[in-house]
């Protein structure tokens, strides 16, 4: 364990992240990059971008609260070191997505009210399930909820958004840095918690129940977010057709053609991808994946 945890030191993090793949960026993107023009000028696309960005901020605020809250109940110094780097990663994510909200025209003084108004209620419940474990200083459940469930979801959502942002290099670049961060976080969760689950097998039922509950709220969030996406996706296609070029032409994500896929198809592909990842990763740490209830 000591060797594995040494890979997550502050020094390694400094070299890999701020001195590495973030080098030369401002708020996660190249200094001269701006939002795609149509996102800024077409109301429906701008509103949709704001709604998506709000969900990212809500998720990252939860991750920031969880990772910082877990430091005090971490069983060893090396885990505290890693969680300290994760705390700052998540704070950075909050900052860059908040900046994006302002780049999309939300005034600084309206950021918090916009997030409160537009955060999906199911995503808020998803966060509450996790933060209850953190508040109870339950390290094992907290790390599984944070570094496998929440981060696993974020990883796939960010990948999908990045693939969908072929026409918006600024946002795609911002997401690339967060994806690199999330990959580290998921890796820590799998490695550290596997040994802790073996030491505390009595924790399994509680952790499995939490995973099912969080997965349910995650699926409900996906359903809500894709339910009114059809018109917007058609609008984006029409704009691309007028320009005689579609940046999504030939782009696919986990087998779905992003230029032709319907919202229902995209929702199903995203849900299957995330749940598949949960199953694989939970299996590696000795937790039995629980199929969640399907949202109505």
């Amino acid at each position, binding site marked *: 364990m000591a060797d594995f945890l040494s890979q997550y*030191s*502050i*020094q390694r*993090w*400094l*070299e890999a992240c*701020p*001195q590495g793949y*973030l*080098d*030369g*960026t*401002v*708020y996660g993107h190249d*200094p001269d990059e701006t939002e795609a023009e149509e996102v800024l000028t077409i109301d429906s696309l701008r509103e949709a971008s704001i709604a998506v960005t709000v969900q990212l901020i809500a998720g990252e605020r939860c991750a*920031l*609260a969880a990772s*910082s*809250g877990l*430091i*005090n109940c971490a069983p060893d*110094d090396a885990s*505290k*070191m890693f*969680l*300290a*780097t994760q*705390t*700052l990663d*998540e*704070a*950075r994510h*909050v*900052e860059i997505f*908040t900046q994006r909200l302002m780049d999309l025209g939300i005034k*600084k003084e309206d*950021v*918090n009210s916009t997030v409160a108004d537009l955060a999906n209620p199911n995503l808020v419940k998803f966060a509450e399930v996790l933060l209850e474990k953190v508040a109870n200083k339950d390290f094992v459940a907290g790390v599984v909820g944070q570094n496998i469930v929440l981060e696993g979801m974020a990883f796939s959502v960010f990948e999908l958004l990045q693939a969908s942002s072929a026409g918006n290099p600024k946002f795609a670049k911002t997401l690339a840095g967060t994806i690199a961060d999330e990959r580290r976080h998921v890796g820590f969760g799998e490695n550290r918690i596997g040994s802790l689950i073996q030491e505390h097998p009595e924790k399994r039922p509680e952790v499995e129940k939490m995973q099912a509950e969080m997965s349910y709220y995650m699926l409900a969030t996906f359903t809500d977010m894709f339910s009114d996406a059809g018109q917007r996706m058609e609008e984006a296609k029409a704009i691309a057709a007028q320009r005689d070029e579609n940046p999504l032409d030939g782009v696919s994500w986990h087998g779905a053609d992003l230029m032709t896929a319907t919202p229902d198809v995209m929702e199903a592909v995203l849900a299957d991808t995330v749940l598949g990842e949960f199953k694989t990763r939970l299996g590696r740490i000795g937790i039995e994946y629980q199929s969640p209830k399907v949202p109505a």
Partner: protein
Amino acid sequence: MVGTGETGDTGDAWEPHLLDEDEFLREVQSFEFWFEAIEGYLGDRPNGYDPDLVEAELDDAERDQLVTILCNYPVGETAALEASSGLVRLAATNPSQIFMATQVADEARHVEVFRRRLEHLGVSDLDTTIASRANPELLEFKRTLLGFVDDGQWDLAVFAQNVLLETMEDTVFRFHQTTADPVTAQILEGVIADERRHLGFGENDLGRRLAGDPQRRAQLTEVRARLDPLVLRCFEATYRDLGLRPDEFPELGRSYLDAVERLGLGG
């Protein structure tokens, strides 16, 4: 990463103090600002010091004394790590939450560099050695500080951590830096630079909140008076570890007294 300013450049013309108050806080309490700051003094110093720096020759007694002194530092830094991580959730504004997250990473780095220094000095069982040599006064201070955090008392916790603890560390580290071997001195230099930022945040945040709130000021003055003896005992214990006789102690806590005076907590 590059500096942000308003336009993403780091040109000489950019001056954060010309920004309005909200914008200033958002700027200086950001990840970007933090990284710009630490990169200046840590960029070429992995683990806090220049790898080409030559170790001083220490005899057994000198090495043992240094180990004893250094054993106190991870205790104070771990207290700060645990307190600042708890304060992330208590922060009232997004910028102060981001700042506290940068402090979490700073404190974790301090724990890491001091522990590594101890390992390089030949300490094999770190946790046991630290537990056996650290001053009990520091552990008492840590309990008090974390109690404030657990009770959700932002003002008291920021005062205890970002004013009291940071001033204690700043004072002791500065003194130790003047007598330390080159490697330890360079590690301390980077840590001191971080502590100054934390202290600045504490004074700035509390100063704004105390202005026009005499009740809160009175409460903090009372807490300060209650903690003073403990703070002084911490100073004395550390100076003893540094090998000083009482008549050689530097003026105890001058910068601490200056800080509480600036906050109007002189009582």
